[in-house]
């Protein structure tokens, strides 16, 4: 299985789909099929990597360091699979209702390409290139719908995220300046030998850049405005697929390239994560429109990822990966099902709500439990208390939203099609399945940490 196959499917597929009118159903379903094919290729690559270890491909046969390398390891593949699942579901969902712009399916595919590319690259600058491909697709997607409200949301999104991209580019330039390499492996070998101050500055810049993407507490200001303005499928894509850049970036650059700086900055991340959880939860309780509640909930949920990262070690990193995966699925399910009507949609939404609150048998329970367990094992009462408080807050706002959305207000704002219902039900079942059989996901996330150095806390 070659690394190039998922990229080739997505790239040629996106180009092919862009030639046709995406508002027509056959074109939309072809795009869904191509995304699913790329997903299947990525899963096959994942099985191969699981059996034979990470794969590497030097572009044009140049060895790593001289040329640009594509690298596929479990960490990248896990995030690529989750992102492609989210994109396929969201596109299918939108196609089964009504696609409103001819370019929409092609854009979703281009975003899939950008995400898969950046999860598979071993070169810091190439990471930035793929990152920009997915961001450019996201900029256009944010304005999808083209009402004044969506354009306003898109403008905020573009301005803030361009700032984030520039910061990231500055960070890469600094890394190159400090180490003389763009290859991530070589940078991670070089950084421990460097003087600490410039590296800390670089690491901070990159941390801020990814925090903006994730919508972490002090950098969250753009997120509610954007999520409330966009359509449900786009909100699902932004929070379920695009936000993975942030979690993956923090893991790859934080845990892989700057492990020493990550350890020293652990208390900052702990504080920011805690504030994110409490702030997101309290704000979500105070809001009424579903997208706004879910947007603040997103801010709260990324706090857990940050806390898991600050704990570090194999357990901490595995918890961060697990939480990022489950959170992406939760948010996709919630954004999609909140826009539907009827008891089936209500039940699917309830599963997502349980998952966010961390109630078994939904998958979110294990995300919270892993962090809870680490808190107890390490004897850190603050983390245990935070998981409780965060869980209680999310329980309150999720059921407030459920009540407002499915009990009080019954009128449909858009068509509830059978296909859309089937999709959210499938997603809900998948989350329940993860909750009932968590072992595969737990072992995958543990395997994904195996490439990260300094796993011992």
């Amino acid at each position, binding site marked *: 299985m070659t690394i190039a196959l998922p990229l*080739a499917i997505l790239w040629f597929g996106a*180009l092919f789909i*862009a030639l046709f*009118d995406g508002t027509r159903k056959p074109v939309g379903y072809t795009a869904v099929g191509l995304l699913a094919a790329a997903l299947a290729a990525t899963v096959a690559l994942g099985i191969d990597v699981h059996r034979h270890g990470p794969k590497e*491909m030097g*572009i*044009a046969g140049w060895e790593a360091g001289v040329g640009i390398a594509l690298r596929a390891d479990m960490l990248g593949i896990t995030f690529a699979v989750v992102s492609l699942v989210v994109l396929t579901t969201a596109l299918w969902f939108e196609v089964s209702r009504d696609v409103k712009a*001819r370019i929409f399916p092609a854009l979703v595919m281009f975003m899939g390409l950008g995400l898969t590319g950046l999860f598979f690259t071993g070169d810091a600058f190439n990471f930035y290139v793929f990152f920009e491909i997915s961001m450019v697709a996201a900029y256009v997607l944010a304005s999808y719908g*083209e*009402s004044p409200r969506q354009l306003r949301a898109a403008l905020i999104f573009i301005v803030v995220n361009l700032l984030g991209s520039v910061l990231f580019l500055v960070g890469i330039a600094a890394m190159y300046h400090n180490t003389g390499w763009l290859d991530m492996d070589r940078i991670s070998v070089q950084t421990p030998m460097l003087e600490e101050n410039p590296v800390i500055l670089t690491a901070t810049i990159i941390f801020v850049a990814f925090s903006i993407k994730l919508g972490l507490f002090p950098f969250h200001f753009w997120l509610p405005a954007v999520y409330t303005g966009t359509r449900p499928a786009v909100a699902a894509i932004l929070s379920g697929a695009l936000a993975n850049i942030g979690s993956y970036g923090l893991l790859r650059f934080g845990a892989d390239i700057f492990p020493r700086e990550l350890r020293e900055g652990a208390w900052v991340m702990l504080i920011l994560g805690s504030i994110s959880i409490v702030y997101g939860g309290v704000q979500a309780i105070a809001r009424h429109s579903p997208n706004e509640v879910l947007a603040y909930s997103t801010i709260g949920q990324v706090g857990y990822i940050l806390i898991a990262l600050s704990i570090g070690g194999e357990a901490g990193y595995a918890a961060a990966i697990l939480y990022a995966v489950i959170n992406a699925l939760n948010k996709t399910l919630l954004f999609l099902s909140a826009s539907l009507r009827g008891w089936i949609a209500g039940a699917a939404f309830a599963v997502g709500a349980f998952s966010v609150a961390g109630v078994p048998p939904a998958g979110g329970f294990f995300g919270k439990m892993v962090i809870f367990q680490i808190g107890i094992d390490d004897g850190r009462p603050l983390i245990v208390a935070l998981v409780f408080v965060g869980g209680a807050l999310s329980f309150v706002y999720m059921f407030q939203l459920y009540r407002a959305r499915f009990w009080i207000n019954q009128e449909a704002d858009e068509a509830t099609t059978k296909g859309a219902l089937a999709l959210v039900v499938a997603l809900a079942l998948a989350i329940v399945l993860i909750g009932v059989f968590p072992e595969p996901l737990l072992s995958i996330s543990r395997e994904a940490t195996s490439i990260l150095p300094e796993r011992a806390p």
Partner: protein
Amino acid sequence: MTTEMTRTTCRILLLPILMISVGVLVKGYADIGDGFSAGVIASLGIILQGVAFGAEEFDRLPLVRYAPLATFAGLFLALAVAFLPVVSGDPIFLHHPVAGDSATHFGALEFITPVLFDIGVFLIVIGFCVGSIGAVARETVRRERDRGAQAETRRGSPGAPAERGDRR
């Protein structure tokens, strides 16, 4: 409105500019230049025609009409060069003849697959620059015409909602 002098000069300049851009494209392997800069030079030459002759005349140029297709063709060509080696099990972007082998020369032009890749980039840049400027110019002309028609009828209708009209 531009003068006859400007228009004549612009029209005369078009072919030399295109020639130079092809030169820059071909020279890229032995000298300064590549598909990107060649594309920028060529599209500036074409856009110059729009500046001199106005948007409507600009639209009539075949180069402008097929610009969006050039983007697709260029991206396809570049991707094909990148991904075709994978079929035979080589890493992506592997070029033929491979490093160390000698290539056939025709003046400054070397017959190697990266030239095809650069032609792809050249087409993408031309298609994008000319296509996007053309789209903006077309929209400006349309708005001016609408405004003129509105002033004529003296009934300021509040502008049709854009949401429905843009579906296709």
